[in-house]
């Protein structure tokens, strides 16, 4: 399974890093957010729990907002709105 990053609509992006351990998810999330414009939303799918802690701290530091979190079965789907 490879990393996939796609624009799914106007200001909507999806990044799927399932199957990857640290540091892939947080580094790809950082790159994806750099690519996006302010106000855009990223749907991030990952299954490495510890990456979530780093991504949360990253969003906190940069002012990006995690607006939705769906978690269960070892997978995490977060929606992040870029500041």
């Amino acid at each position, binding site marked *: 399974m490879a990393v996939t990053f796609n624009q799914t609509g106007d200001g909507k992006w999806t990044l799927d890093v399932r199957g990857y351990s640290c*540091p892939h998810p947080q580094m790809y999330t950082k790159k994806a957010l750099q690519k996006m414009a302010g106000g855009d939303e990223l749907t991030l799918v990952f299954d490495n729990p510890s990456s979530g*802690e780093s991504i949360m701290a990253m969003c906190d530091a940069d002012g990006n907002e995690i607006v939705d979190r769906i978690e269960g079965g070892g997978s995490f789907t977060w929606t992040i709105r870029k500041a």
Partner: protein
Amino acid sequence: MNTTVAARSGPATAWHAGSTKALGLLVAGVLLSIWAVATDARLAYILVYAWFGVGYGLLLQYGRFCMASAVRDLFAVRVPRMAVGMMIAVGLYALVSAVVTLAGFSGFHPNPMGWHVLIGAAIFGFGIVFTGGCASGSLYKAGEGNVGSMLVVVAISFSQAVVVSAGGWLDRLVPASWTASAEAKDMPAELSVTQGWFDQFTAGYVWDLKAATLADRLGAADSPWIAVTVNTLLVAIVPVLVILGLLYWVYFRPGYMRRAKIASPTVGQHLAGLWAMCTASRNTALAGAGLGVLAGAHVWATGAMRARFEVDNFGELLAAMNHQAGLSMQDTVFDPGYWYITTQEAQWGAWVIERLGAPMRDNIFFGLDNGVPSPLLNAPGFMSIGIIAGAAMMALARREFKWKLPNMEAAVFALVGGTLMGIGARVAMGCNIGAFFATVTNGDPSGWVFLLGMALGAFAGVKVFAWWVDWQAARRGDDLAL
């Protein structure tokens, strides 16, 4: 952070299938322990390691506590979360260790200080960027169902076993002074210390270095109270406070002040910011505190077991139980008495290689010091297994357990990174637990050299990793190519 979280997976406290499996694992562990003690009360020695391992695993998974990310995430994504958690753990471990040492239960031995610590730690630090976890981190992630992390453990095990027993062309790289010094040690002939680079490195270089706590180096070891105070304050507490201050100033303060809309902060506001940094990830802070206390208690528990059975090393108990096969020529086995990861995994690798017919005892590491016990009688080995089991229990209970098969890229990273970690750990005489966490908390400053080396290696690793990510994205031509 203004986070609106939609709870779609049900309350975390509700009973679910994962809770039942976690409880099943716990009950199985308890029943096995009862059976073991009923078979032979001396097996309680192994159980102390095993259950402390379970405790470490529970807390590591709870706090997503991986020391690899302490240095890696600082450089990769400028997140100080784990570095802060690690410092909290170091501070508390040091304080508990001080009490344990004064109570006379510490079996700690300082590591020799030399260039090998820096170089080995740098190799180790480079490797952890690619494996996604340190040695303990890989164990707890294996407990989350991460097969890639299991590959890392396998790579660490075999690479160490091969490194300490390898000869051939590697011997030609050994300085003549090491060979001469090793030869002068008058070691038993069957160890053939002038053959095999690691033997010559150990006997001809490492043994000639000084291993001492700071109090010993300063000549302040006459009074136990003064020695413990010097060691705890100067080797652990002061460096921890300095590093926390630096992490706050460089990584946390700018974002914190921006969010709090403070332009000219007062000292009080800085202290509030420092506290906010330490508590930013509640799970990490709690896990750090718990691990610090648990690691200190572990030293006491093993010390109490040694006093109870009147032994200095588990090898004596194994011999008394008629299990001589895995003992070293000194009738010892690896038995650190505290949280340690890599050496027992090297023994697993060596045990398998021995079963395949290759000799593994003609070297100092296994033959003289650590032995090659069966995995069923490897006491610290059960600590590693305990970490996997404890992490699996916590992950199952939190609905975070998931079997994750690595793709080819992740599998190669796991095997290559794990091999580098194994090589680095042996050159540095331990990993981030044995050569850093256990040392600086017991007055041995060599651990800070290890941390510096690990940070330098991780910095280089992050640069190479970032280049790899960019190259991959450019090759695919997708939107991640920046």
